[in-house]
């Protein structure tokens, strides 16, 4: 009994409830005519698609910058890379790599500026990050129209300029990473191995990085800034580095997302993209101050599992699509829970 209590305390009620909810969805699924293998397939694909975006939360949480609501900034860098790679008409794996290569310097630069900004506003990072994300998305709405891209695959047909809201990458590099070493179990269930490999490699690299001297210093800056200052760690530099890392992972994450999804979504597309990622890592057990790789993996599976299962199962059960509402309540409820919890622990 004591152990059960301790387990519940460690994992936290919301997480247990969500896990049970997901489990019950999977149990109910076959009885309401939803194919289990197809559901698992969707969950796997979504897990691979979103994993890196969730991973992007880790460095900033660890360095004490809070949840990266400014993820759209990184996403924009990724979008610029993706759009440029389509413009250059590079196909296959090379296309994805080109996108990532182009996105990297942009992400590093944007992340650096963003990091400098966040260093000036310690204590209110999250609110400002949210609005930095929003305004950069709104600013890019103008830029997508104005930038001199000209590939007929991407611009509006009648005007001859200005990028379209969604751009298909099917002819270029859809599933270029997912396809790698993927295998099919049956008609409905395939495993996108390539995506998992890249995701796990990035997770591994992150966990190794966190163990290096720099990574440890970053964690110390987050958990105890005074101690960090006393031991001669340059706080601002560590924070900037973490923001750059987060932004870069955001850029890589969105390219992973697009190559699986098959479309680049511009304009208001990235507007709310930070919220699912934030919710996922929190569902995985992270707090505003502490996040690890396990949180990323568990959280992404749980959150994306719910997103995949609720529409199909609840739809077949009550003939109504409540998935959108459930998504809003679960994801924001989780963020709210984390925000209100953190103060309790501190005082």
């Amino acid at each position: 009994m004591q152990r059960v209590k301790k387990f519940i305390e460690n994992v936290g009620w919301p997480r247990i409830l969500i896990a049970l909810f997901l489990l019950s969805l999977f149990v109910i699924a076959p009885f309401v005519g939803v194919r289990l293998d197809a559901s698992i397939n969707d969950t796997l694909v979504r897990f691979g698609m979103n994993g890196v975006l969730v991973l992007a939360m880790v460095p900033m949480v660890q360095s004490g910058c809070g949840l990266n609501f400014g993820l759209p900034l990184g996403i924009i860098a990724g979008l610029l890379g993706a759009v440029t790679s389509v413009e250059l008409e590079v196909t296959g794996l090379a296309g994805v790599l080109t996108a990532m290569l182009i996105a990297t310097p942009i992400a590093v630069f944007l992340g650096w500026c963003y990091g400098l900004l966040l260093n000036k506003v310690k204590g209110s990072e999250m609110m400002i990050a949210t609005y930095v994300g929003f305004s950069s998305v709104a600013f890019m709405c103008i830029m997508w129209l104005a930038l001199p891209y000209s590939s007929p695959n991407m611009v509006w047909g009648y005007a001859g300029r200005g990028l379209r809201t969604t751009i298909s990458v099917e002819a270029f590099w859809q599933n270029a990473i997912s396809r790698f070493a993927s295998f099919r179990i049956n008609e409905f269930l395939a495993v996108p191995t390539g995506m998992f490999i890249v995701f796990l490699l990035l997770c591994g690299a992150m966990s190794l990085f966190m163990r290096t001297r720099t990574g440890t210093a970053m964690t110390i800056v987050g958990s105890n800034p005074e101690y960090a200052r006393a031991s001669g760690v340059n706080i601002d530099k560590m924070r900037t580095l973490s923001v750059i890392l987060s932004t870069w992972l955001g850029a890589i994450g969105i390219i992973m997302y697009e190559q699986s999804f098959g479309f680049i979504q511009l304009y208001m597309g990235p507007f709310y993209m930070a919220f699912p990622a934030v919710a996922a890592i929190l569902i995985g057990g992270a707090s505003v101050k502490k996040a690890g790789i396990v949180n990323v993996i568990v959280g992404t599976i749980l959150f994306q599992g719910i997103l995949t299962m609720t529409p199909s199962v609840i739809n077949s059960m009550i003939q109504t699509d409540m998935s959108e509402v459930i998504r809003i309540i679960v994801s924001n409820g989780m963020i709210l829970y984390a925000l209100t919890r953190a103060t309790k622990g501190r005082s």
Partner: protein
Amino acid sequence: MNSSKNLKMFLIRNAVPIVFILVSAAAIPFSQFSADYLIQEMLVRLSRNSFLVLSLLVPIMAGMGLNFGMVLGAMAGQIGLIFVSDWNVVGLHGLVLAAIIATPLAIVFGWICGVVLNKARGREMVTSYILGFFMNGVYQLVVLYGFGAVVPISSPKLLLSRGYGIRNTLNLDTLRRCLDDLVRCEIAGIQIPLATFAVIGVFCLFILWFRRTKLGQDMRATGQDMAVAESAGIPVLHTRVISIVISTVLASYGQIIFLQNVGTLNTYNSHEQAGVFAIASLLVGGASVSRASILNVFVGVILFHLMFVVSPMAGKYLTGDAQIGEFFRVFVSYGIISLALVLHAWRRHADREAARAHFRGQNSDKEAK
């Protein structure tokens, strides 16, 4: 020297409104709007939005920052309006009834919001923001699935064709402009909604009076320093909850006034926009996260909406593309909030660093001696 320093301080304090005035002044000629049109439009928007923006003042006074949770109040107001249109109560009676229905709802929402924010002290803004999203989900659950199924709605006109859930847009024809047109007044072809302005004026007086009451003073003390207020015997947490409740209730009235002017209710969008635009307006008026006056409200509403009206047309004539102007104003509304938040946080951070440097400097002086 001193006066130039004062001027500099003035410019820094009012950087946001000054930039706005300059941008609008440059954009007006390009937009090719007539002065009459702009004045009429500004009056309409002033009557429409001021109340919503004013509802933000109380929590700022209590040191809780910008109340992004005002969307909760807007939701309460909308629920009131939905019931009133269902029962077909028309005109001013309908409006008052909507407010009466909205009040208890807004009190409950505000109380929830206040309690949650008390648990997240120091990050009220981001928490109230997320709370707005969360309650939006709950609102959708209730209005989209509950209304007509659990909550009785008699008029099929309001319901979706499937038999339950409120339609995406409701026509408020029976309530439209019933407050604005209560007292008709026209000067030089420009209509002035006198009754609405009277309501707004009463509200301003209320705020002025409220600041002088015991509760108002308590709030200001809480806003200055929670620990000091606590030791002075002020029930800090309770006071904070009350400030949010007041703000939420007022926001619900504000949303009702807003929607009677617009005349259509976007059941699932109207409240979301209310928050962003009200906060942007207040900040454009020169308010900061910790300091806002009634003057900021009116200046802000005029400047923000001037830009709002002018920029799409100016953008269209300047670039030949209407969409760029459209995106520009979205960018400005978010950009201005970021700018104001950054400036505020920056100043606070700089103050803290300065205090720290001062403290250190004194110590090293002592050591030197």
